[in-house]
């Protein structure tokens, strides 16, 4: 009888956790939809909500209203789409790294991968004079190469989270030195343009940015879903995972490759937007409060943070459009300090 009661108790807890997961997910989806609607509606040129809907449906209905179509389909929709896609990619990348390295601070913008992408992009711009798509390709290659270098240097009969993080910090320092050096060598105008790229912006979002990222996500998101299942086992520690029959190193490597690819493609599309990868995971976990899961929710949080920050960036100052990276950076800084302080107080800061 007691075992039956216990079993029904456990299943009740399970059900309530699942219900919580569902509630959080629905809440986040609703918030994302609201953010999308606001992002399409807000702007200097007022467009009525029904006109926006008609314009969005115009490829189906064939209805044409040139002025509104241009604003909605060519300006606001690409920007909104890019914000969502980069937010999802950054959010997933950060969540995977933080889970895999078992450290809430181990996101790609702290452990050197964004720095590698940045250094490569700055080299493209300031040394070779490349602009546009070439810079994105350079950033992509830079992120991949840096991640490989960090993994290889942290390898010593296996990798430990500790070594990956610290090697990553050293690599970040080298990349930072490369960037500062090139800044002192360039003309101010060019250095300023490179700096603008480094902050990360959605101001000139267009199909050339969106398509490569969208294509990558079509492959990467299913891969993430598949690999994440084994991540729950890895969380128990390498020894337990091996005992349970998981081949640890190949799984870890595959996950790192996927997480790096998420970060690399998002960075190539919008620049290394600070802190989105860092904050998405912790916010999602705080909302879920131990109800498991977290990756889908991190992706949603990433998209919401990106969209929300971009709206602030566009409309906070009347005359200028700030790059989105400034807003995520300042928001992230505040969140970071609060998060570290509260995590350390509870004795789980590292």
């Amino acid at each position, binding site marked *: 009888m007691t075992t039956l009661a216990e079993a029904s108790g456990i299943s009740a807890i399970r059900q309530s956790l699942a219900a919580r997961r569902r509630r959080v997910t629905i809440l986040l989806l609703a918030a994302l939809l609201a953010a999308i609607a606001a992002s399409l509606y807000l702007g200097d040129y007022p467009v009525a909500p029904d006109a926006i809907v008609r314009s969005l449906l115009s490829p189906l209905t064939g209805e044409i209203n040139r002025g509104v179509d241009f604003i909605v389909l060519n300006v606001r929709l690409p920007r909104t789409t890019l914000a969502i896609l980069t937010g999802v990619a950054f959010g997933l990348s950060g969540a995977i790294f933080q889970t895999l390295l078992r*450290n809430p*601070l*181990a996101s790609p*913008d*702290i452990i050197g991968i964004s720095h590698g992408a940045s250094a490569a992009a700055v080299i493209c711009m300031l040394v070779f004079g490349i602009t546009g798509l070439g810079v994105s390709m350079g950033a992509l290659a830079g992120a991949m190469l840096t991640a490989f270098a960090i993994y290889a*240097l*942290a390898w*010593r009969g296996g990798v430990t989270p*500790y*070594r990956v*993080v*610290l*090697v990553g*910090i*050293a*690599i*970040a*320092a*080298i990349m*930072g*030195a490369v960037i*500062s*050096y090139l*800044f*002192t*060598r360039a003309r*101010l105008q060019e*250095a*300023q343009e490179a*700096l*603008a790229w*480094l*902050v990360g912006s959605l101001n000139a979002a267009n199909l050339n940015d969106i398509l490569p990222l969208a294509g990558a996500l079509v492959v990467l998101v299913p891969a993430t879903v598949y690999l994440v299942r084994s991540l729950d086992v890895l969380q128990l520690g390498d020894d337990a995972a091996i005992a349970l029959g998981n081949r640890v190193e190949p799984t870890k490597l595959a996950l790192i490759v996927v997480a790096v690819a998420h970060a690399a493609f998002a960075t190539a599309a919008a620049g290394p937007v*600070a*802190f989105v990868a*860092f904050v998405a995971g912790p916010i999602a976990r705080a909302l879920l409060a131990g109800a498991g899961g977290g990756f889908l929710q991190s992706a949603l949080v990433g998209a919401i943070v990106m969209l929300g920050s971009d709206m602030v960036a566009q409309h906070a100052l009347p005359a*200028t459009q*700030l*790059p989105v*990276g*400034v807003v*995520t*950076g*300042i928001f*992230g*800084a505040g969140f*970071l*300090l609060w998060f*570290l*302080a509260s995590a*350390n*107080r*509870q*004795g*789980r*800061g*590292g």
Partner: protein
Amino acid sequence: MEAVRPTAMRFQATLALGLAGLAVVVAAIALLSMTVGARAIPLDMVWAALTAFDPNSTDHRIIWDLRLPRTLIGLLVGAALGLSGAVLQGATRNPLADTSILGIHAGAAVFVVMGISLFGITRLSIYVWLAFLGAGVAMFVVYGIASMGREGATPVKLALVGAAMTAALTSIVSAVLLMSPTTFDQLRFWQVGSLAGRDMAVLVQVLPFLLAGIVLALATARMLDGLSLGEDVARSLGQNVAVSRAVASLAAVILAGSATAAAGPIAFVGLTVPHVARAITGPNYRWILPYSMLLAPILLLGADIIGRIVAPPGEVQVGIVTAAIGAPFFIALVRRRKLATL
């Protein structure tokens, strides 16, 4: 005991001799620094300039206006970085503690940027104060957050909090720089870390702080030796652990702050040099500190000299050269298994 004592004394004598040898190397590299540059000046000319200054000679003016301040600042900043690294590593019992890891540089950068953009300050002599203040604030915030919780400031916590703080402050700096190209134009040359273009006025400004920091740091040797036994042992030997930590941290902030103020953020000298010193002397801070103080200027001035000749007709700033040398060393250190035992 009879047999141990002479061996120990001989080791001490060897260490003292080594220290004297290092002092000679420091003097030699300082002289080299006076001769090497865009215009090579032979040693006898350097000597003549120092002993009998002739205001009509271009070489003499280069020595007095450029090379001498640069060399003196290199020596002092190097000594300060080496000492602050060693003291910080001892006080936190953390082999990864360093001024650049702990967010001190980013803190200095934020204050300098605010000074330039909000108050239009362009004089290096005022950057010095701003950098000093920013370094202190950042260091105490990072240390404070990392030492919350049960285990105190563990190596990983400090490194991560510092790196995160650096990332956060850097993005604030970028925001200001984006909106103000003139600020960016000023900062990009400060931020890289350089010994070039500093005159005697800068040296005079930071000198009192550097000297006070050096004295304070050297005086902490006994406390650091006590701390290295572990908090419990140190306490049972009658040492006040919290006071020791605070005094040592203060010395490190004064040194790192004034070094950053004088030369901009220079990475990794403070991190790498104490490990070299420790490898030579063993775990005794009464030797580690003076060794770090002499080894670091050798690295810094050496890197500066390399930077002067590696890319003629220009120069590579010393901060770049030290990162290029220091970061690989750091990675090698991380790969060593006994890293966390300090």
